């Protein structure tokens, strides 16, 4: 279903239909993440999907409804995309099997977090314990990134607003 949504987005010229299909894709993705037991990420995906759909519809309000015809045939990008898909698919062959308990990622620090996390932090939700306590610096960086991105968007959009007022 996700592949169908993606292909229809690429073929679709009507921007409103694309936005709706993106939202469908986002909710399918959230469902997949919940099925993979990553409820945190699924929750984020669902909320981000809803909010970004609103933002995209808001953008549609400002621009034209139909995408322009491409000026040339996108053959080179197609080749690049296909080669990338091939390389990535080849790369997955070297990964350990899905949910393999002996995979390196489950042997490194994860067992320590799982065994000592609840005792050391008193938090039953290991995801929060790792994010906010063991990997606190990373989360700090994440917050700073969100802050910087927000300030960047504010600076870009607001400057335009004041210029229009000056005219």
């Amino acid at each position, binding site marked *: 279903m996700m592949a169908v949504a993606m292909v229809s987005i690429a073929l679709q010229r009507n921007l409103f239909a694309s936005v709706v299909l993106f939202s469908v894709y986002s909710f399918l993705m959230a469902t997949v993440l919940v099925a993979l037991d990553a*409820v*945190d990420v699924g*929750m*984020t995906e669902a*909320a*981000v999907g*809803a*909010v970004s759909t*609103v*933002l995209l519809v*808001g*953008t549609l*309000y*400002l*621009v*034209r409804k139909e995408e322009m015809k491409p000026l040339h045939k996108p053959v080179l990008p197609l080749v690049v995309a296909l080669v990338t898909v091939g390389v990535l698919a080849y790369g997955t062959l070297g990964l350990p099997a899905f949910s393999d308990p002996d995979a390196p990622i489950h042997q490194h620090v994860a067992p320590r977090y799982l065994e000592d996390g609840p*005792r*050391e*932090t*008193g*938090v*039953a*939700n290991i*995801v*929060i*314990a790792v*994010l*906010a*306590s063991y990997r*606190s*610096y990373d*989360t*700090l960086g*994440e*917050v*700073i990134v*969100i*802050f910087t*991105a*927000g*300030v960047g*968007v*504010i600076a870009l*959009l*607001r400057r335009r*607003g004041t210029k*229009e007022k000056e005219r």
Partner: protein
Amino acid sequence: MRDYVVLRVVGKIMMAFMLLFAVYVHFHSKYGPGGGFQAGMILAAAIIFYAMIYGLPAARAVVPEWLVETMVAAGAMLYLLVGVAGILLGGNYLDYFVLHADPVAGQLRGIFWIELGVLITVAGVLLKVFYLFAGRPVTDEDGR
């Protein structure tokens, strides 16, 4: 959407649950899925939902621009200050176990406050971006 009575009434009822759920996701993240980021997203989504039904001016009256802009910086600031509090109480930067006599309670307290910082920044940035997009003047048919 001023004429849609059903939407307006249902929206008003839904708002309380959405805001409550955002707070729940934050406070309950110790035991269930969730956390500051998710709670911030849900909070912002609730306000955006309100703005869609009652119009942007109504949402601006509830959550004014200056508050949103302050939230963007205040969340990151709160996170940084929790780290500084760790230093002042004799630990390293972002050490939580010094925040309370009992190290585990200190961890809980530190995690709560930094997650609150994440919540405030995320909600602030999202709302600000939404306000900026929704508040822009409408252009003509050619998109210019």
